[in-house]
């Protein structure tokens, strides 16, 4: 199980991070469009298509990556008061009611939708540049499949947590500035009031604080 979780995390993170770089493509494409349109009065016909395709791809592909890092917003004002074991039990049930049906529906519907588009190599109607969009519609299927893979990993996480009482964390990754600072600060408080802590705790225990 741990193995599967690690593999799923890696796959999600890999897809999420690779497609994350489309933000750079998007920035430069739209930046170029601004330059040629407002300074040279010679707009491109493709920049708009690129911008929404990059945007759509990046957020869809990152759905599973965000899930693995617990980044999807939840109404957690009751949830946060529970013990990890209770959380895991509730979440395990909810994954089967509220996660898999929706995501599987997305995969199936997306499959129909994109295969129809592949049949005649659909192009965008937003601009005259004939930018192909059948690959863009395929993103729905891929994103859904990634979510299924990651969802199974999350289910395994719940099971492990129910057994051991500890939530299995994903590998270290970039974190929001506030989380980094909060952690650093915690560290420092512990360090500065070290006399009291040292007296009670052997040093090895504090490694993972």
């Amino acid at each position: 199980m741990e193995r599967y979780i690690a593999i799923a995390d890696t796959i999600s993170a890999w897809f999420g991070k690779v497609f994350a770089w489309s933000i750079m493509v998007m920035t430069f494409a739209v930046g170029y469009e601004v330059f040629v349109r407002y300074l040279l009065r010679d707009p491109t016909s493709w920049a708009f298509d690129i911008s929404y395709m990059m945007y759509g791809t990046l957020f869809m592909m990152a759905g599973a990556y965000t899930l693995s890092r617990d980044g999807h917003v939840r109404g957690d004002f009751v949830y946060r008061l529970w013990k990890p074991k209770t959380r895991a039990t509730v979440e395990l049930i909810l994954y089967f009611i509220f996660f898999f049906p929706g995501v599987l529906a997305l995969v199936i519907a997306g499959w129909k939708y994109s295969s129809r588009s592949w049949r005649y190599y659909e192009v965008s109607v937003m601009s005259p540049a004939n930018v192909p969009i059948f690959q863009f519609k395929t993103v729905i299927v891929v994103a859904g499949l990634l979510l299924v893979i990651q969802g199974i990993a999350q289910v395994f996480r719940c099971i492990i947590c129910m057994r051991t009482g500890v939530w299995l964390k994903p590998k270290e990754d970039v974190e929001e500035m506030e989380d980094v600072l909060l952690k650093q600060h915690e560290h420092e408080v512990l360090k500065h009031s070290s006399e009291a802590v040292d007296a009670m705790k052997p040093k090895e225990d504090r490694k993972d604080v």
Partner: protein
Amino acid sequence: MSDPVIAVLMLGVFILVILLGFPIAFTLMAMGVAFGYYAYYDPERMSSLFDNRIFDLLVNQTYSVMANDVLTAVPLFLFMGYIVERANIVDRLFHTLNIAARRLPGSMAIAALATCAMFATATGIIGAVVTLMGLLAFPAMLKARYDTSFAAGVICAGGCLGILIPPSIMLIVYAATSNVSIVKLYAGAMFPGLLLAGLYMAYVMVRAWLNPSLAPKPKASEVEDIGKMQVVMMVITSFFPLAFLILSVLGAILAGLATPSEAASVGALGGMFLAIAYRVAAVLKGEATATWAKPGSVLAKDWWAEAIGVGATIVLGLYTIYVIIFQVARNIAVGDPISLEGGLFGGPFIAVIVSLVLGFAVVLMGDQISFLGRFKPKKEAARAMMVFAGKGASVGALFGLAYLALMHSGFEDRVSSRLSWWSLDIGFYVGAVAWFAWRTLERSVLSESVYLTVRTSAMVCWLFVGSWTFSSVFSYLGGEELISEFVISMELSPIAFLIMAQLIIFLLGWPLEWSEIIIIFVPIFLPLLPVFGVDPLFFGILIALNLQTSFLTPPMAMAAYYLKGVSPPHVQLMQIFKGVMPFLSMIILAMVIIYMVPGIALWLPEQIYGK
């Protein structure tokens, strides 16, 4: 059960499920699919289990989120925010403003408030602003014997301004849910944002003036003795770049020049430029280290690249000054459009040749001729940077030459534009700038910003995927109508409706975050607005004001928790809440003022875009 009752059941179940803490985006999607399967169930279309129109609806809604032209601005603005957040701009900004404001009552609080407001505007990330300022300005204020509650309130309230003052992500999200034009929303939020910031400032000054013990004046020994000119210089280097970035993004949108996503991408590029500029300055001053700036990192065999780099830099610098003085001045004075060709003298290739001559002259003869020697970089870091620029320029020039040859050799059958003659020059300078930027920008800052951008965008946009599916099923079942009829049957006056709506949003802000409220709950009110004659633009501004409170009110006062997390142990959560209270009443005061004088919100959009 009739369909509308099912719809109400759907909403009820959803609210219960939120309490359980499952990721909301997927809850919405699954519930939309399940109830939609019931709603669209058609006994004649049961050839397979999946023969139901709900699947078409789901995928169509997903695709319309993916191809939404308003939401494209979300990742771009987030990206700009993360880059600015990680570029070490904020501590210099606070330090500078603190010195500049030292004569005002409660000067440090004013400086903290201004820094918070600017930083929150540029990044839009409230958690980061509050924690950073909590580590930077909060201890400084406590050390200056400021009242703990007072100082805490300033930082929490100031950090939340980012969701109101444009370019805020929240307003983009509201625009996508309500179909109000985003540029109009930005124009409408300008003055209310300034009003609220102004109210905060006024409050701080009046309190500090009435009760000096809250914010004691710094002793003469504690104030750094810095000359006026130096203060001006500090303001120019640390305040103006960020202000310029914000103003150019906003100006471009408000002047109708660019769409939000265009302005956002310019902002992201500007953010990268700022990050590079601050980094280069820090490395040159020796405040930061970089592997490429260590002694001995410039190899002797790279002298040619150094020469090319020096030349390219000098010409680019001169050209920038020329453009600023002549082109921009003419643009402002006469209204001539900025034309690129008018800005380049001579013909193609001249600029490259001038660069090469200048560069080699400086490097080879700089030691003999003192005038040229002045331009020769002396520090190891500066020389390394020149080598980057030179190498980039060489590669770029090669590409430019190849393109030129291709376009003018008859191989390509196209009519080559006038611009294609410039491709050598373009390649040369673009290469120089690009390689320079790539090597000097801290790579970890870039990749961290990219990854965080993608995670936050996924969070916001998947919520849209779920919510649009959910709400179309909800209104198909007739839930929306039922709510409308119910509210209309209450026979409220418009003002009572407005107060009720804002009160509900205020209460929802206690347990929920802004993204959930805007994407899921605000759409319930939107169809009611025309009934009561409320302008959705005006409503959006009130919500933006209102939602600041969602960060400040317990039990889910994220801003207060962030501040508590980074403050010294003796600061108590209750003290922070106590300090936040007056600012909460300022927010409500601002809402009342804007309700009484709607022109504050509506005047600017009408001026710019007409009614």
